[in-house]
């Protein structure tokens, strides 16, 4: 896979605010790429720079080797699916999908064939003559997808594609998006604030905060090896224990030495452990810390337990998988021991 889209040190300012701050990244051919971050992190601005709706103050944008930085939005071989879908309310589904092809000068039988193919691809053939106001949210999204894909863009940009849908429909559309991306082989660049969505969909994720890339990695790397506290906190649930590295080990005030990976320089640090990595036992057995169960929530399969630990400001969160010997009998006030493997924790230096 070669680099399809290259963002090279792009900066975009709005007055005193730097929305995008020297961001560089590459999207490969046929890749599902996610730009993830909290609201106001610059992800939508970056997407609009790629689409051609914002001109960057600095930096270049290249697509398939050619510089498109100064190319107008209507000349770029990329298409954008808007967050609000932005369907033309006065046109039917067919008219909406045909619009982009008409702009290419396509007409007659060829136009009809391409539009029908696109509608079939998103399973909306039966709704060709409906107006957007006669469609449900999910159906509108399918038409918006068909409208953007029918032009066979080199890359499809999606702005919060699932944000407006309810949970059940969202899961269904996630699978649908993945299928469409694999069927068409078009690179998808999706912008989202929903970490779960990014983890499920993307091949690679760029995590943004305040206009900068915090981490660019595969979903698994991002989950298992966050580079700093922001990344660790933003993706999934995470327990943090503040302390310091001394004598080649991690020590937390009042808790002593805790299991942690080796090879990190001395100084203040935080230990980050995922809830599902925390082992809960009734006996000490060389465990790391002791605490008292504050509450346990049944999630349908797993159990989430909150364990108050002396000297820690926030309770430790542990996720007990189905079949865990304690999952059925954890009670409030019960004394338990917590432990984890050294290599399953992460040391954060900021």
């Amino acid at each position, binding site marked *: 896979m070669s680099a399809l889209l290259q963002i090279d040190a792009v900066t975009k300012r709005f007055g005193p605010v730097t929305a995008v701050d020297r961001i560089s990244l590459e999207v490969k051919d046929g890749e599902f790429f996610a730009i993830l971050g909290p609201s106001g992190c610059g992800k939508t601005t970056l997407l609009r720079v790629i689409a051609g709706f914002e001109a960057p103050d600095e930096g270049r944008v290249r697509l398939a080797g050619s510089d498109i930085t100064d190319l*107008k939005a209507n000349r770029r071989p990329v298409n954008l699916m808007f967050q609000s879908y932005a369907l033309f309310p006065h046109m039917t589904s067919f008219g909406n999908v045909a619009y982009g092809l008409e702009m290419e000068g396509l007409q007659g039988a060829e136009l009809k064939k391409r539009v029908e193919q696109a509608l079939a691809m998103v399973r909306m053939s039966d709704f060709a003559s409906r107006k957007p*106001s006669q469609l449900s949210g999910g159906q509108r999204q399918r038409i918006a997808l068909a409208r953007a894909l029918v032009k066979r863009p080199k890359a499809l940009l999606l702005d919060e594609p699932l944000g407006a849908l309810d949970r059940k429909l969202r899961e269904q559309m996630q699978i649908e998006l993945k299928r469409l991306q694999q069927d068409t082989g078009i690179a998808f660049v999706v912008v989202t604030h929903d970490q779960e969505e990014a983890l499920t969909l993307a091949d690679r994720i760029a995590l943004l905060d305040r206009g900068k890339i915090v981490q660019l990695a595969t979903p698994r790397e991002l989950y298992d090896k966050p580079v700093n506290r922001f990344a660790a906190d933003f993706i999934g649930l995470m327990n943090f224990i503040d302390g310091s590295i001394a004598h080649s080990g991690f020590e937390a005030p009042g808790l002593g030495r805790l299991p942690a990976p080796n090879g990190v320089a001395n100084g203040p640090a935080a230990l980050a452990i995922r809830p599902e990595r925390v082992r809960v036992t009734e006996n000490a057995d060389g465990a790391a810390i002791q605490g008292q169960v504050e509450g346990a929530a049944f999630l349908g399969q797993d159990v989430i337990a909150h364990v108050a630990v002396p000297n820690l400001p926030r309770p430790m969160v542990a996720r007990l998988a189905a079949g865990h010997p304690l999952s059925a009998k954890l009670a409030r006030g019960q004394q338990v021991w917590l432990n984890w493997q050294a290599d399953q924790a992460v040391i954060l230096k900021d």
Partner: protein
Amino acid sequence: MIARDPIRLWLNTHLGLVYVFLYVPILVLIVLSFNKSGLPTAWTGFSTEWYGKLLANPKILSAAGNSLIVAVVSTIISTAIGTLLAMGLEEGGPNPWLDALVAAPMIIPDIVLAIALLSFYTLVNMSLGLHSIVLSHAVFNIAFVCMVVRTRLKNFDKSIVEASIDLGASEVTTFRRVTLPVIAPGVVAAALLSFTLSIDEFIIAYFTAGAGQGSTTFPMQIYAMIRFGVTPEINAIATIVIGFSFFLVLLSQRLNREAVA
């Protein structure tokens, strides 16, 4: 059954009285236009002879023709300019000064606007006639069109303009195929409003028509006739105008409702 609510009863009575107050004089006028006798004091039988007389009066017909010309031309001018103005103002950020300047011609008393326009035409040495009335009407109609179209633009999802450009359309094509069709109900409603305002406008037309007999508009003609007393002929004209205006108002309201859906 819901018990009779005294407050509701009061409100309904009040509503009824307001409508009586508004429409009884008009109703009287309509009834009298069908009165056989020429006097407004006694009903002597139903007749449509005044409508017949009206249609045989060349002065009235030519004045009505003039008013139609003025209304149609000034509506076309003000709808085109007012719509573009509305788009420009919505595009730019909020600017209370520009907003106030656009709204001013609606609020300035007609008599002041009339004098100002007449002074201006005299200053630039422009000849007076139907064309100067057209221009004068366009001045205040632009303000009304702009206001109506802007209301429509406020509910307009601007991302559909970007979507059109993203799909490869030029800005002109986008305006023609996306923006204009979507705001069309608002534009048509604005045109109907400016047509109605122009067709019965008197003061400004009176001031800027000039001395020639050929540029007498419909309201000016009625004014000339009424100086010799309210004739049933005038009642008949008024009834026609009321019917026509009512039709336009209903049409424009209907269009605006459809626009929201």
